[in-house]
């Protein structure tokens, strides 16, 4: 299958470009921070870090990866191969989600002393990781340089992060449960502190639907800007 082939290409590319080294350093830094916290604080910090890590990876790594592919011109070549845009997007999402899962499991297993619902943790990471990677894609299709990326990123960053404050109780805060970042965060907290089965199923379904819609939108934007980019430049 072409998506698997593309995944192989992505892993090799990320490895050779040094993304995995950066990632290992990042995980070590998280673990160092957690080990310095008093145990009360770390109980809150661990789920937050496990949530925050794939979002940062999704956002910045995808930006770096696609930017490098643009600069090297590889992206220009990929669009004249049989690889579909959706396969291209999917393989990148899978590669970064796997990173997020591995990091989440390592951080959870090495720092948290009580029990964790691992399956729930992994689902939570997946939902938020896919969401942030898609936001990262939307940003990078706009920008032609790293500097532009950091500016174009701001609105998408808000879309991803701001709704997460709805975890603090206030009227109608459930309205924010359409954001996969909120859902991912709730599921991850659920993996640590418990969560009702009804909520789990609702959050997962809601997260999947939003992510699929966003995926289709991203595919469209990507096709218009990258494949047929020459039309409007």
């Amino acid at each position, binding site marked *: 299958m*072409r998506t698997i*082939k*593309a995944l*192989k*290409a992505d892993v*090799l*590319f990320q490895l*050779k*470009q040094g993304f995995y080294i950066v990632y290992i350093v990042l995980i070590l830094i998280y673990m160092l921070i957690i080990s310095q916290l008093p145990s009360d604080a770390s109980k809150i910090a661990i789920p937050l870090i496990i949530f925050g890590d794939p979002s940062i990876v999704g956002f910045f790594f995808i930006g770096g990866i696609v930017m490098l592919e643009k600069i*090297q*011109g*590889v992206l*220009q*070549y*990929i*669009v*004249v*191969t*049989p*690889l*579909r845009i959706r396969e291209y997007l999917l393989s990148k999402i899978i590669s970064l989600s796997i990173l997020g899962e591995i990091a989440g499991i390592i951080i959870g297993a090495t720092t948290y002393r009580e029990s964790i619902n691992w399956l729930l943790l992994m689902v939570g990471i997946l939902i938020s990781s896919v969401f942030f990677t898609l936001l990262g894609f939307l940003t990078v299709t706009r920008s032609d340089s790293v500097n532009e990326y950091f500016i174009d990123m701001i609105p998408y960053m808000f879309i991803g992060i701001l709704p997460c404050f709805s975890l603090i109780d206030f009227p109608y805060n459930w309205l924010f449960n359409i954001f996969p970042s909120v859902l991912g965060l709730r599921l991850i907290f659920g993996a640590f502190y418990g969560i009702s089965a009804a909520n789990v199923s609702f959050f997962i379904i809601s997260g999947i639907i939003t992510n699929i819609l966003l995926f289709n939108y991203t595919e469209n934007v990507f096709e218009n800007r990258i*494949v*047929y980019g*020459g*039309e*409007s*430049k």
Partner: protein
Amino acid sequence: MIRVSEMDFTYEKSKKKAIKGINFNIEKGEIFGFLGPSGAGKTTTQRILIGLLRGYQGSVEIMGKERRMLSKDFFENIGVAFDFPNLYQKLTAIENLKLIGSYYKNNCLNIDELLERVGLLGDKDKKVEGFSKGMKMRLNFIRSIMHDPEILFFDEPTSGLDPINAKIVKDMIVELKERGKTVFLTTHNMTVAEQLCDRVAFIVDGGIPVIDRPDNLKLKYGKHTVKVKYVENNVLKKEEFPMDSISHNSNFFQILKSKNIKTIHSQEATLEDIFIKLTGRELL
């Protein structure tokens, strides 16, 4: 293989037409050259045929189907070498080929053989970032043919290559044609066009004033003369005679008999001269 009729194209953010109602056909097994100065519309036409620009007017038929109706499977049978080598810099030559090659259904041609042919076999495990421009262009070239496609698009295939490597690439293009592949290439370089192309189209300002075989063009528009240089009273003199009436040109024979001849050359117009004559434009 390719039929283009009354094709018009205007870039979205521009008011004037980049392509103005052009017509041409390319047959299977033909090398077709697009020649023209910078900004004439070569890349634009090529990008429309490849399918990277939408919204053209008129008709573009490839392998019997309208371009805009073709799916992504079309690319299984297409090979493209852009004029800029777009390769994974941190990956080796062989990784570059294998990763991209894995996206095609066709089994790839023997990659080592291709690398050997363009003199890169010894460098196959080196990272592309350390390659010279010419090495990158050669890798770029074989990447476009490794999945054995039916139609090939080459944008300036010999630019950045030294004469020896340019010759290798030109030979390989001719071999593709001999194997029945259809080649569409663009170039500024008239010598390349003359050596390779079965037919050439001159493109200027988005229009095609001339399409013909290079030898026909030379026959039709080239001046065909004989230039004689001889020494008389210690001075080098030269004289030119039209080829078609040479057999009964008494002046010519007189010189041959009585003068101290230094050189005799037949003169042919180059494709470049004909281009300038027909379009009023310089190439480049």
